[in-house]
């Protein structure tokens, strides 16, 4: 038997073996898939689907396109340099008449009003006053006679800008940007430019809460990790206790504690430290206190788990090698808790930027975070586009942070810990 023959036999039997392996694996894989299928479907319908829908709504621009299809078509070739010609006016007049009969004028005018303040009045006035379709060739004059705004470039630019099918209007709006008459991206007018401020506030509060949680949580986690198991288990119950109470109850409890007739103010007055009640709630202070309290366990738990894995032998080794307790802590202990600090901070920060109820209950008007505005636009003014765009920007910022964190942690993962 030659070597070539043996090799050939191997090669011919390899194919069926591979196929058999695949077949065997396939059954197993299908079984595994069937097990996670309920969760997958659940996530798809409750999580991925809504997120995709939200992202779509932040760029979707359907109202004008649906209500005024002829105007949109007529403006397709408009260069935007001057007021469009007669055909566009004729199409507009036709569309408004149709919309008026169908009762859909309000849909389009609401969308157009976002783009140009006062458009709602122009639309409703025009719809009301346009009794009949204008004579052919006379549409321009008729409409301008009803409302001189139709003779302005900006009015038409607004329609053109809202003609879809996709728009950057909401996303730009969420970043305090807008398009001017010429379609260039410019800063939004000052009285409308609030979202950068709100995002800034959201990130400032979240960062502040994260830092407070770290400062307060680190010693607690250290104590939990170094105490004997029996005692640390009892303490752990106190750390976890807030988890067992509803967020709403915890936040309301802070109102009781911090309000001007609350426990803190009463005690301070009783001691005689103050005469007038301190303003502890419905301001930034209240927001920091309540949010830090609610989010503290999310910092303590990752810190605790990272500290638990640090053998006390390291500190002893550092001491025996001549490091003072402070040096040993800074150079040996602290660096090993970095993964825990990173995980805890990321967790707290990401949870904090989405906070809504707590700032809404214990914060003042100037302490409302981005979620408040998202809720406002979805429930109060039903401006889904802007609400979705704000959500999309928030989602993007969060994902970016998660990616940065992932990169940092991955760069750290070169050690295998202590070998036993």
């Amino acid at each position, binding site marked *: 038997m030659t070597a070539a023959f043996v090799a050939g036999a191997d090669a011919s039997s390899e194919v069926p073996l591979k196929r058999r392996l695949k077949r065997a694996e396939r059954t197993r894989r299908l079984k595994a898939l069937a097990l996670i299928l309920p969760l997958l479907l659940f996530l798809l319908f409750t999580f991925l689907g809504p997120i995709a829908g939200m992202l779509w709504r932040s760029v979707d621009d359907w109202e004008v396109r649906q209500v005024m299809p002829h105007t949109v078509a007529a403006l397709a070739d408009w260069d935007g340099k001057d007021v469009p010609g007669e055909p566009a006016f004729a199409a507009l007049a036709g569309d408004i008449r149709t919309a008026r009969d169908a009762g859909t004028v309000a849909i389009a005018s609401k969308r157009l009003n976002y783009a140009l303040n006062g458009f709602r009045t122009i639309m409703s006035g025009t719809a009301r006053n346009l009794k009949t379709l204008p004579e052919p060739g006379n549409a321009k004059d008729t409409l301008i006679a009803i409302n001189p705004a139709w003779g302005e470039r900006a009015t038409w630019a607004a329609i053109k800008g809202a003609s879809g099918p996709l728009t950057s209007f909401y996303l730009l709006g969420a970043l305090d940007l807008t398009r001017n008459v010429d379609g260039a991206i410019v800063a939004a007018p000052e009285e409308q430019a609030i979202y950068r401020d709100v995002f800034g506030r959201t990130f400032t509060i979240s960062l502040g809460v994260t830092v407070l949680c770290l400062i307060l949580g680190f010693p607690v986690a250290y104590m939990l990790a170094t105490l004997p198991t029996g005692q640390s288990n009892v303490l752990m119950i106190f750390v976890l206790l807030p988890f067992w109470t509803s967020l709403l109850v915890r936040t309301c409890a802070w109102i009781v504690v911090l309000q001007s007739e609350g426990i803190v103010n009463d005690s301070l007055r009783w001691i005689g430290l103050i005469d007038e009640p301190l303003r502890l709630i419905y301001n930034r202070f209240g927001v920091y206190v309540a949010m830090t309290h609610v989010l503290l366990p999310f910092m303590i738990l990752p810190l605790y788990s990272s500290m638990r894995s640090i*053998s006390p*032998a*390291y500190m*002893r*080794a*550092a*001491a*025996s*090698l*001549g*490091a*003072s*307790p402070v*040096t*040993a802590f800074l*150079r*040996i202990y602290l*660096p*090993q808790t*970095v993964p825990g600090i990173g995980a805890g901070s990321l967790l707290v920060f990401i949870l904090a930027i989405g906070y809504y109820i707590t700032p809404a209950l214990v914060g003042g008007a100037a302490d409302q975070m981005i979620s408040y505005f998202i809720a406002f636009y979805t429930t109060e003014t039903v401006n889904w586009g802007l609400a979705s765009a704000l959500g999309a920007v928030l989602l993007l910022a969060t994902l970016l942070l998660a990616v940065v964190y992932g990169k940092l942690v991955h760069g750290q993962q*070169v*050690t*295998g*810990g*202590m*070998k*036993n």
Partner: protein
Amino acid sequence: MMDGGMVTTAQALVRFVGVQKTYDGEHLVVKNLDLDIKKGEFVTLLGPSGSGKTTTLMMLAGFEVPTHGDIYLADRPIKNMPPHKRDIGMVFQNYALFPHLTIEENVAFPLTVRKMPRSEVKERVRSALRMIKLENLAHRHPGQLSGGQQQRVALARALVFNPQLVLMDEPLGALDKRLREHMQLEIKQLHETMGITVVYVTHDQSEALTMSDRIAVFNDGIVQQIDKPDALYERPVNSFVANFIGENNVLSGTVENIEQGFCRVALASGGSVVAQAVNVAGAGAATALSVRPERISILTDGQAPDGMNALPAQVQDTIYLGDHALAVLKVAGNGEFMVKLPPGAHAGLSHGQSVSIGFRPEDCRALDPV
């Protein structure tokens, strides 16, 4: 008990004076320890777990405080000195290499905390890594090294700052047998070439015998005997040491009389032997005789030469061990009486066979009863 191991105060680098330690206020883990360690000496603290040897080491390192007594390092009391000021290098059981630092940074750590100039740190680290033959792994992290390599790094880190004393707490416990034996020789060589003083803790008696200048055998918080390895093996002063170090055969009996350092002992099962009176209370006292397996011969003609003890025995089993063989005999009621034989000599013995054994009175030590 300390005979042969006593050193004068002037030479001692480490001195334990009447040291006691208790954790719970009820039981003494270390009872009245007096121990002197010379400069350049390799002293092993040997004993079963819970005998107080690790506690003794931890008190020397500064991680435990003596309940009573004093410890002197180079004639300075160090009882209240924090560990980082003691200038003692330590190798831990699980190496305790810092996982977030590279090998190079680990070895440099004791130098950088001493604020040594950077160029000198570099030079010392390089020569330390050359010493342990791991220069090419300088930029690896400890997790990427094998157990033996980590052990060598831990050694280099404990030696690089030239401490006046190096402590080792069962440093080879986590390694496999072959590697452990190799590392024993390596540590011994380091000790000899560098002239360092080492206090080494182990529960492995062969490790202690291989490496040490002197061994302190701990049991029950007390140093049972401190001596050179050969003295410890050949001349144990009590039954615990005789049993703990090496193979030992025990015969129980009662002392009949003592004469010129030798005593006649009546065995419980009848018959009598002559033994060195090492640790017996006097005539009439119970005693445990200790005979090493290699000091016993099987008498082919059943007749013992003059002055030699002879006892009847029954063969239980023979064990072939390559370079030698063991015969397990039943002698005076002891069914695990071992006799070491040259290879091949076990062939003539069969189970149940009656033989006679002989040993010299000088090789039989009458010790405290077990």
